[in-house]
Structures are given as structure tokens and as C-alpha cells.
């Protein structure tokens, strides 16, 4: 039986498992960073155009009333319509690159919940 001090993570004084953790951690962090960059650069087609719409498209959510959706080029864009409500705000799919604001500035009024 080894008398090397161990802990519940499985580390020993040689740092062997610490190296394993380092590799896994860095791998997942790199994958995450890659996903972030890929999403920012290639997956998002900013509907409505303009730098102002870009950040909103990143997350697929929108500030109440700003009506910016996130999609990719494979999504067929219907006529502007409210397709989703998140508590009190709405994501609006946009068509033809135009920004269509919801009919109301009081999104809660349109919230079905």
C-alpha cells in the first residue's frame, strides 16, 4: 500500500492527477472558447444588420422592444412575428433583414403567461 499522502480528488504529491485535471480543464476551456468564437463568427447571421444588432444576436435574446432575433442562414425566416415570450419580453423573427419592433413598448401586455 502506498503511503503517499492522498486526498479525495486522487491527487498525490507527485501532482500526477493534478496534471490530469489540468489537461481536462484546459481542454474544456478551449472547447468553450472555440464554441464562443465559432458562434460569434460563423453561426450567427445578424438579422437586421448593423453593429447594434450584433450583440443581441449573440445570445438569441433581445431587450424588450428591440426585436432582434438570432438564427443561422439555414433558417427560413417568416414574416415578422412574435415567436417567443420570455416572461415579459419577446424574440421576434425578422424577415428581409429589417428590424420590426413589437407593436407595443409594453411587452408584458403581450406576455401570455
Amino acid at each position, binding site marked *: 500500500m502506498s503511503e503517499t*499522502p*492522498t*486526498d*479525495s*480528488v486522487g*491527487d*498525490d*504529491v507527485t*501532482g500526477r492527477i*493534478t*496534471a490530469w*485535471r*489540468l489537461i*481536462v*480543464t*484546459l481542454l*474544456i*476551456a478551449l*472547447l*468553450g*472558447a*472555440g*464554441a*464562443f*468564437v*465559432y*458562434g*460569434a463568427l460563423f*453561426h*450567427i447571421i445578424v438579422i437586421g444588420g448593423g453593429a447594434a444588432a450584433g*450583440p*443581441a*444576436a*449573440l*445570445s*438569441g*435574446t*433581445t*431587450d*424588450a422592444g428591440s426585436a*432582434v432575433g*438570432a*438564427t*443561422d442562414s439555414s*433558417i427560413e425566416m417568416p414574416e415578422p412575428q412574435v*415567436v*417567443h*415570450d*420570455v*416572461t*415579459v*419580453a419577446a*424574440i421576434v423573427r425578422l424577415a428581409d433583414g429589417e428590424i420590426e419592433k413589437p407593436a407595443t413598448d*409594453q411587452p*408584458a*401586455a403581450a*406576455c*401570455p*403567461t
Partner: protein
Amino acid sequence: MAMTERKPPLRTARWLKWRPWVQFGFLFVWLDPLMLRIHSFCGPVFHCYACPLATFACPIGIIANFSALHLIPFIALGTLAVISASVGAFICGWVCPFGWLQDMFARIPTPKVRLPRWAGHSRYVVLVALVIVIPFVWGDAHPLFICRVCPAGALEAAVPSMAKAAAAGEGVAWPNTIKISVTVLFLLALFFTWRPWCTLLCPLGAIYGLSNRFSGIFLRVSDHKCVKCGLCRKLCKYGVLPDKNPNDTRCVRCLECTKCGAITVGILATKPSDAAAPADVPGEDV
């Protein structure tokens, strides 16, 4: 190498008194004091973007929305992966505003019960069913779509919105029955257990919990110092057995268990703090 040259370990217990203040300080990040309104960007915490005081968007809301649209939320997933790999569930214990809210309620001196250990796994049911499967299959209109039942959304977004509408003399749009029921049950549970949302239902905590095994900051137990007294188990309110598995998926990294002195915070690529014999580093490691 002389044992006395080893860098002293982190003295975690000293940090604990600062935890509420750290949580409180982060409110100034999440509650948008500068009115930045970056609602379009994924935040790392469970805070509804529809809240009038939200700086960022809720990552769970983003994932659910994208699932409903049959899209992969690369940016949100990337954000969560980076956060998970770096600090993991420390977000829950030290940063999340909804966790802070529950911690504040926990200070109310009411008799509290510890939930069974298996209860922590129910979060994964919520994550898979309400955040991914239901939105993907039935879309956002389903009554169990996560945002439609989320008590954080109710308290942070619906209540202010209703209050604003009522104050303006406009018609109040009430949340649906399920959401009201979940919120009322959640508020009641706050008085009788610790962090009921985090323990039972939080899908974001479920994601961060998965990273406890590999995150860059983690917990470790010193076999030299652990005397199997069970103190760490008594200190933990979330069903974790810190002496057996300090990096359990249910751990929210409140670090209360570190008060026992045998559990310490480890940081990526650091060696165990008790590499030296106990006699070489007396009184350290807490």
C-alpha cells in the same frame, strides 16, 4: 526540498465571513447599476434578463430559447464551458444573485430541514426536460417551458412588471397558474430549507455541478488532517459528504465544510497542501 519551503495553503475559512459581501458586491454587476442593458449577452448566473435591473441574459433562458428554435447556442455553451472549467460551482456559492437571495432568507431563524441527498439529482431532470427536451419538441408555448415556471423570472421580472403596470393604472398581466404555484412553493420553502431552488431544481447549478470534478478551483480533503469526526457533513447543508467526495455535483462551494480544517481549496496545478507531514505545517491549511 525542505518541507518548510512549501507555499502555505489557502486559508479558506478566513474567506467565509466575506462570502455574503462578495455576493452582495456582485449584485452591482448583475443588477445593472450603470444601466448598460447588455441583455443580449449571456451572463454566468441565474438572473432573468427580463428583470428591469438585469445586466445580462440568463444562460438557461438562452439555451431553452435556442432549443425551441432548434439551434445550438454556441456562444452561451461556450461561456458556460469556460466558466465551468475555471471556477465551476463557485458561481453558485459566491456570485449568483438568486443564490444570495436564498442565503438571505436562510438567515431567518426558522426551523429548517435537510433535504435527502438524492434530491440534488432532480436538477438534471429539470435541465434535460424543461430546458432542452420540452422546448425542442413542443416549443416555447408549452406550459412547462422553463421560463414559464421559473420563480426567478416571476420574482425578478413578472413582479416588477406587474407593479409597474398597476402603478400606471394599466391592466396587470398575471403569470400563469403553474408559475404562481411554483413561486409560492419556492417562497414557502425558503423558510424551511436552505437554497431550495439550488438544491432541487436549478438547471444552471446542475451544469456547474458537473464541472466540480474538473474545474480549476476545487476542494480536496487532507487525509492527514481528517479525523473522521463528521463535522464537515454536519456543516454541509446540501447533501454532500465532503470527506468522501468534496467535489460532488451537489456542492455549491459555500465552503462551510472547510471550517473543519481538513478540507481546503485547491487551485489548478497546485499540489496537495498536506504533502508535508502534519508536524511540518502546524496550524495551517484552514
